[in-house]
């Protein structure tokens, strides 16, 4: 038996207990969950591996590295091994490789199983792939740190504590220091806009040029992956393309390089017999201090939570899809709720939330009105607003729906505007008037979503290829005033945006501007406040101001921008809804929280002045009430939040 084989056998003998413990812990939970899903639904499926991998993977790497290193360190044992005719490098390398192999084997096998089990699932398991692609390198670094620390401290308890402190630093320092954002594992695995990508592999016929296929444009193809790596298989051309985001290389490259440096450091420790002796007490205080500094830095940089004045529970039953409230103040509001039976969505209820009485308990009265008008088969999406309500006519709801009785063919959809009266006596939504607004080919406008906006008594309808303006002054007889084609859109420059206005000459300038403001689509959250326009995305929040108005275009100039630091990106994950009011920007974020910024025009800065994080549920929408309070609308509750501006007055 040569030296290397003997060393491998010796290390494997030591590592077998870690392997067994790791397999028991990391594999039993997925198997248990998979068995449960199999017994329930006949499908063996589990998504636990990705969760336990990032939660406990680092800890397992530390335990394995410390165990392998420190079990050779008791009195005399290390000297015995060093007295054998074995060179330093193979002794250290074999130990490193065996420990790393055990760690990765234990952690990645269930992950691979998870990805395999989800291969034909309706929803892709991108989190599992993200963990596999990115967290493996984090594990590598943590393992290397623990390996190095083990040789430096030569004591199990001390090494584990120091390694845990280092692990906290590896995970959280990049989140707190903006310059280190590319190394932030958490920011990397959260959803965000796709950064620049490059093709790293292309398997298929050579005649297919790389430039002919771009990710994001070829949506018709099978397209799966995570934020860092995409595999695109195009069956018609038998082509598989692997795209990798450039940030991924920086992340994995830096982590791998740091690991190599640590292994070299370990070799130096061994070569020159470097050793640090610290007591358990000082180590614990060191770890505690690291944890507290990280926590306090994060807490103070996020700032204060705003006060929630009340949580109003919405009636149970009926999913709110989407929870649309067009106007919500102390007088009430309107919300649309899906009504479900065994076969699925069977209709809608118009829910009127009425007479919210301010006081210690916030009482309210609600009525539900069944509404039996057929709606488009694809249902609602969050950004499609098809219901309008105004406090000028509180018992009337305007609703853009499909008239099923007038359906002339399977693909044609006949859109009608319904004026619906909410009858307090019978609790039934009665249709007062109907105005047919157009017939459209559903196939042709598959990805279109209707929109409706009300500036009482003018109602604007965003239809598949045109805009309709309706006068709703007379409830029973809505009147079509104009219908014209409008290609809502904008062009972006470095410091500004140019929006196109509707060209219809029968409309006043104010009406054309309102139509543009209502229907200018942007994938990012957006808001108008007079001549100011704000938009929020994953990376930044910007505020623009009108500089020039032409007959066909409006030009806006950027007056303030906040590039979100990594912690803010991580906590808020982009803006879902934005409200711009005076100098305050309210941003409803995707993670159940509200962020409030104050605009400083002279310095071009948006300064965070408050935030609100709710403990339960997520919010779909928010309304700035007449009294200045913010109503955050969730699936089950409405939270009334006091903004900081009011507090300071």
């Amino acid at each position, binding site marked *: 038996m040569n030296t290397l084989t003997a060393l491998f056998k010796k290390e494997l003998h030591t590592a077998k207990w870690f392997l067994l413990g790791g397999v028991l*812990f990391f594999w*039993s939970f997925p198997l*248990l969950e998979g068995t449960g899903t199999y017994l*329930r639904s006949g499908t063996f499926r589990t998504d636990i591996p990705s969760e336990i991998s990032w939660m406990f993977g680092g800890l397992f790497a530390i335990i394995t590295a410390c165990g392998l290193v420190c079990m050779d360190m008791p009195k005399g044992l290390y000297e015995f091994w060093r007295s054998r005719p074995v060179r330093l490098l193979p002794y250290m390398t074999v130990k490193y490789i065996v420990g790393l192999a055990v760690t990765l084997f234990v952690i990645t096998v269930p992950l691979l199983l998870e990805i395999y089990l989800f291969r034909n699932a309706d929803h892709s398991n991108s989190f599992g792939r993200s963990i596999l692609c990115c967290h493996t390198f984090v594990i590598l670094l943590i393992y290397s740190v623990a390996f190095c620390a083990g040789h430096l401290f030569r004591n199990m*308890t001390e090494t584990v504590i120091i390694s845990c402190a280092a692990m906290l630093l590896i995970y959280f320092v990049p989140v707190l220091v903006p310059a280190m954002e590319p190394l932030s594992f958490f920011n990397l695995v959260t959803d965000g806009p796709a950064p620049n990508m490059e093709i790293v592999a292309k398997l298929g016929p050579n005649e297919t040029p790389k430039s002919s296929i771009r990710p994001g444009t070829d949506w018709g193809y099978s397209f799966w992956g995570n934020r860092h790596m995409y595999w695109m298989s195009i069956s018609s051309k038998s082509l598989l393309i692997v795209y990798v985001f450039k940030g991924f290389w920086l992340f994995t490259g830096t982590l791998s390089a740091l690991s190599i440096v640590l292994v070299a450091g370990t070799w130096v420790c061994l070569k020159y017999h470097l050793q640090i002796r610290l007591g358990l007490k000082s180590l*614990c205080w060191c770890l*505690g201090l690291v*944890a507290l500094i990280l*926590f306090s830095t994060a807490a103070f940089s996020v700032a204060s939570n705003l006060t929630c004045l009340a949580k109003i529970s919405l009636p149970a039953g009926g999913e709110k899809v989407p929870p649309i409230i067009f106007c919500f103040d102390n007088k009430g509001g309107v919300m649309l709720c899906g009504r479900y039976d065994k076969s699925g969505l069977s209709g809608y209820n118009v829910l009127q939330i009425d007479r919210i009485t301010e006081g210690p308990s916030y009482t309210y009265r609600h009525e539900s009105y069944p509404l039996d008008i057929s709606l488009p088969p694809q249902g609602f999406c969050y950004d499609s607003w098809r219901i309008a309500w105004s406090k000028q006519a509180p018992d009337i709801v305007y609703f853009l729906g499909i008239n099923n009785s007038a359906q002339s063919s399977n693909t044609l959809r006949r859109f009608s505007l319904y004026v619906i009266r909410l009858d307090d006596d019978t609790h039934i939504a009665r249709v007062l008037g109907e105005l047919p607004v157009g017939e459209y080919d559903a196939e042709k406008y598959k990805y279109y979503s209707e929109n409706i906006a009300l500036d009482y008594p003018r109602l604007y309808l965003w239809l598949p290829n045109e805009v309709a303006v309706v006068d709703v002054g007379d409830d029973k007889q809505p009147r079509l005033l104009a219908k014209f084609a409008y290609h809502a859109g904008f062009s972006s420059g470095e410091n500004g945006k140019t929006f196109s206005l509707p060209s219809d000459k029968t409309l006043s300038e104010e009406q054309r501007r309102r139509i543009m403001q209502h229907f200018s689509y942007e994938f990012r959250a957006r808001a108008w406040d007079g001549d100011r326009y704000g938009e929020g995305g994953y990376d930044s929040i910007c505020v623009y101001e009108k500089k020039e108005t032409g007959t066909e275009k409006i030009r806006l100039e950027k007056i303030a921008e906040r590039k979100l630091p990594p912690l803010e990106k991580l906590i808020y994950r982009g803006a879902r809804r934005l409200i711009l009011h005076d100098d305050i920007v309210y941003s409803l974020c995707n993670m159940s929280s509200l962020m409030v910024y104050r605009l400083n025009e002279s310095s071009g800065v948006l300064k965070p002045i408050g935030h609100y994080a709710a*403990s339960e549920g997520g919010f779909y929408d928010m309304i700035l009430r007449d009294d200045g309070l913010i109503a955050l609308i969730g699936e089950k509750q409405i939270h009334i939040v006091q903004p900081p501006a009011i507090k300071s007055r």
Partner: protein
Amino acid sequence: MSPTKALFWKEWRQMQWRWIFSLAMCCTIVFVGLKTRVLPDQMIILFSFGISAFLIPLFIAMGLVAEEREQDSLRMQLKLPVAAWKVYVVKMAIGTLAVAIPAVVCSIIALLMAGNRERTSADIIRIYGFVIPFEIIFMLWTVVFSLKRKTQWAAALTGVVILAVWVFLIICDDVFLLEIWHIHWDLSLIITPFGFLEAGSDKGPWLETSVAQGILAAVLFWWGMRRFAMLTRSDK
């Protein structure tokens, strides 16, 4: 000073830095979290609750017997003219005090800073009130099962294994009893102290858990005492 008093004094001095450290960690987290209001009050309270429930008992349990065996000081302690069971009882009493102090101080801070703010004061008292029995029982299990461990590291690992087994039982209960066979026994919440944590959130079967855990703790304490006596014979 009587030998028992001396034992109390010695254990108290020995555990002092551990409970001060635990206290500093927990209280700072509660204070900073509730002051900055970075998260809803409930989340901050639950965060400190998690540290109190899982980390502090582990940390204290490491220092009760395993530390003395690691430093080889247990042998000398047993030369004192005191019965072994008294040494064990004193250790457990000081351990109980050391795990309870941080939870009590945290609850006072939380009450002063956030009582009736987002959660009622009664809620806060209930949450911390149920964490203390969990901490004591977890510490007891860890100490009893790690009596033969010769290092603190091994004792901590024993505690982690105990936690993993409890979690495993709860998952088995959820997956098999509740979801597949639809049996609502809450068995795992009674046989593991997790029932106390559930009771803290006003859901768990606190009475059944208290009775079952009380009996289990008494048996475990008695068994631990016997193991300690046997262990000390060998250490002598």
